[in-house]
């Protein structure tokens, strides 16, 4: 393998950077000390120190650019670090020039000293960013954060087993306030003179008076602040902080408008229609908007690289379903698999049984043999077998796919008899059966066999209406509405 000289130079960057930091800080120290009568003898050393500092900064920049182009670093931080580094090099060079040729123009001294001050600050910022790149985000502040976090722990997501028996304040409102408000309104900080961490403090309110509106939602400052336009200065929590969800705001609304009781249980509260589903959702693990029910919650080990590489070479689009997960989606696009049959490809997928959750095999040649392989892919939640020509016998191979939620059988040879073999699959929520061999009289039976599954028979039509092609040329006569 040929020696990559830029890569080698780049790797010297972590060593070289210490030179400009040390030399330039030393130069600045000399510069500022030499302003004092007592140390004025140091003045001649300033120039050479600045020169050495500037050169080392330039060398660091060059090595740094090489390192950035070869290394895997957080892109945003790298860009910032690069610019700050270049600025340090430029400003230190300018400083050298300005102090080497003094009195060239009006106000030069002021600019030179201004720049030296800026340089001092920039060195620290650049250094810190560099540190962040090598040691990771928050390395410096980690010990501090620990102290801080001890005082405001976030309330963990708790599942309430029976929401009607739960206490409204203790179980629902308090954890919400803890997560969204305690950072600034508790024993740690009391912004606006407000604390929300005990009942007494909540009732007392902030420096502008009470916040609950004595049970009247229109007068409640707390609710008003939550629902202000987020761009508004008085909106709470402030911009950039985690915001309560719509459901959480609805819960606060409900609590305040029902009289802000600190002791009552949910069942003692009046429950309007709007709040019922929200309360119910507290009984289950709410997954938030970014989770996808078709991706298992439990993590899985990575799939063997060699299998993935082999499949990709054959033109199969196979990728993790998202960054940071090992679950895979595979799409076998017809006409793109170098002449391999669906059966052969299905066989090659078998080593991915624990990772593969979405599989599209539409328009491929599949027989019972390939279906047997697919039947072993136990993690599958979505499966497209449309236009494959599989029949009942082949379909019955899927009996063991317990996780399957979506099954597309459009344009296949399956009949009601074959489909019924899948009725025990617990999670199956939709099956698409357009253009299959299911008889007109079989649907009744199937709907009974799959009470919880949406069976889509397809065959929709959009009837022709005379108005579809008629052209209006005149405004209609005036009619009374």
């Amino acid at each position, binding site marked *: 393998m040929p020696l990559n000289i*830029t890569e080698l130079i780049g790797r010297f960057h972590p060593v070289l950077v210490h030179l400009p930091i040390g030399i330039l800080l030393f130069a600045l120290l000399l510069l500022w000390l030499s302003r004092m009568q007592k140390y004025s003898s140091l003045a001649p050393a300033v120039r050479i120190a600045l020169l050495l500092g500037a050169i080392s900064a*330039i060398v660091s*920049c060059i090595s740094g650019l*090489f390192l950035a*182009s*070869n290394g*895997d*670093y957080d*892109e*945003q931080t*790298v*860009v910032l670090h690069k*610019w700050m580094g*270049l600025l340090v*090099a*430029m400003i230190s*060079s300018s400083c050298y020039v300005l102090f080497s040729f003094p009195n060239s123009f009006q106000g030069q001294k002021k600019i030179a000293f201004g720049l030296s001050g800026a340089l001092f600050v920039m060195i620290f910022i650049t250094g810190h960013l560099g540190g962040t790149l090598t040691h990771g985000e928050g390395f410096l502040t980690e010990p501090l954060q620990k102290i801080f976090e001890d005082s405001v722990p976030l309330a963990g997501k708790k599942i309430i087993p029976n929401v009607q028996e739960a206490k409204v304040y203790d179980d629902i409102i308090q954890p919400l306030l803890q997560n969204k408000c305690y950072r600034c309104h508790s024993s740690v900080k009391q912004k606006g003179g407000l604390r929300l961490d005990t009942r007494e403090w909540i009732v007392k309110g902030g420096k502008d008076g009470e916040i609950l509106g004595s049970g009247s939602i229109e007068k409640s400052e707390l609710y008003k602040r939550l629902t202000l336009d987020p761009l508004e200065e008085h909106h709470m929590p402030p911009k950039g902080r985690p915001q309560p*969800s*719509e459901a959480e705001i609805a819960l606060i609304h409900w609590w305040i408008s029902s009289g802000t009781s600190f002791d009552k249980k949910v069942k003692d509260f009046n429950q309007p229609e709007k709040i019922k589903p929200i309360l119910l959702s507290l009984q289950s693990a709410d997954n938030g*908007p*970014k989770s*996808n029910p*078709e*991706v298992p919650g439990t993590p899985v080990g990575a799939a063997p690289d060699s299998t993935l590489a082999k499949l990709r070479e054959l*033109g199969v*689009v196979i*990728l993790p*379903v*998202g*960054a*940071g*997960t090992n*679950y895979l989606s595979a*799409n076998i*696009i017809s*006409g*793109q698999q170098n002449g391999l049959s669906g059966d052969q490809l299905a066989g090659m997928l078998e080593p991915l049984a624990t990772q593969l959750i979405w599989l599209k095999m539409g328009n491929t040649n599949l027989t019972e043999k390939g279906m047997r392989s697919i039947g072993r892919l136990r993690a599958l939640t979505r499966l*497209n077998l*449309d236009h494959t020509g599989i029949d009942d016998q082949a379909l019955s191979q899927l009996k063991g796919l317990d996780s399957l939620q*979506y099954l597309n059988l*459009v344009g296949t040879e399956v009949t009601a008899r074959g489909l019924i073999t899948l009725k025990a699959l617990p999670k199956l929520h939709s099956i*698409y059966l*357009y253009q299959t061999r299911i008889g007109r009289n079989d649907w009744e039976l199937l709907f009974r066999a799959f009470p919880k599954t949406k069976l*889509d*028979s*397809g*065959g*929709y039509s*959009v009837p*022709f*209406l005379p*108005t*579809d092609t008629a*052209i*209006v*040329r*005149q*405004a*209609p006569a005036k009619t009374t*509405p």
Partner: protein
Amino acid sequence: MTRKEIHNQALFNEARMETLRWVTRRHFLKDSVTGLGAMALGSFLTGCDWLGSKSATTSNVFDSAHPLAPKLPMFPGKAKSVIYLHMAGAPSQLELFDYKPALMKLDGQDCPQSLLEGKRFAFIRGVPKMLGPQAKFQQRGHSGAWVSDHLPHFATVADEVSFLKAVQTDQFNHAPAQLLMHTGGPRLGRPSMGAWVTYGLGTENSNLPGFVVLTSGGKFPDAGKSVWGSGFLPSVYQGVQCRSEGDPVLFIKDPRGMDRDLRKASIDAINEVNRISYEEFKDPEILSRISQYEMAFKMQTSVPDAMNINDEPDYIHEMYGTQPNKACFANNVLLARKLVEKGVRFVQLFDWGWDSHGSDANLAIDIGFINKCRSVDKAMTALLLDLKQRGLLDETLVIWGGEFGRTPMQENREGKPNPFKGRDHHTEAFTIWLAGGGIKQGFSFGETDEIGYSAISGKVSAFDIQATVLNQLGFDHEKFTYNFLGRPFRLTDVRGRVINEILA
């Protein structure tokens, strides 16, 4: 001077001019700035990847050798592809979805001063008259959504979609408003939504582009090709516009005396030359050009099967109401479904002719507008049903809407009443619907006041819609960026909120 000398002189001058023409401003700057300055400049001219830069921290990095390779999203999205039906010119929400009986009572009266103070309109001057709804409305399906009789087919599938009733924009002219809707900014230069999506996800089917554009209605959208442009993204991500009439792609058939192999050999030779110039200049746009040539050839060879709607059975043609060999919305919608089925990520349709000012019969709200509705109703309904029966609707996000809405007032251009009934451009409230791809069914979000003039709750902007589209495809719109001019850019600029209310 002899004639020959004059000739030589002229030839010499021309040669010199040609050489100078090669030296562009960029080359001049690059050559004349040396040292540190050049380094800094180098990062301004991002892209020229002399160092073969790569980074593994994000999956969304431009890989110039395989710009269209399939890529994974940030998180598992619910939608795999998007079909965006843009009614260019902006259809009237007051005749389609936003039913305002109170406005009928005000019909013909002077517009109250309170609605006009401090406002600007594109054409309305002075005091216009109010114009009541020019359509009959009914509540439809289980959801009880109001849909007018202008869309009798769509009314039957109202339970499939989520309406956004309070969309707002700040642009009252077509071109900037369309740019805002599709690129996240009212001025030229930013990449369109489809370009962002292709940059993020690549294309699944290597024989087809990731982003296809189809137009109908006899005219381009006012903002021109920039609404499907790639902006500052590498140009390989721009929308590929297919012809709406005849073959979608030119030269599907081999010309006489020019067989497939010869064509392939020509493309290979051109690409070889391009590759040599890439070695010389390292400009990634050359790589884009190479992959575009390759894509064009692949499309020509795969088109008969992927991009031809003629092989669809008759009942499908009847369902969509297509018109053979004509440039029409229905044909484009059917092609859009085919493309999505084949793995195209983003299909963008523009249908022009919705600008119902009332300045002539075609643009009258009670004449031409009804004809426009009839020309799209059957096809857009068929699209939803056809996607559904193929099991594709749950992974295909369909969006329907214009770039702004229309005023509850009758337009009075230059203070005089227009010859026909019409409405001016309106920015403060209009309706867009979304369906499939993880969107709630039979839902309506946002409300307008009783005459449909301003939004009173559930306000959303173009940025919010863009954020939602990206979210459904598996991207956090705040983190999905591209570095340009030394800073990261996003589709939603500094705004945007995912409209969680309409997510299933």
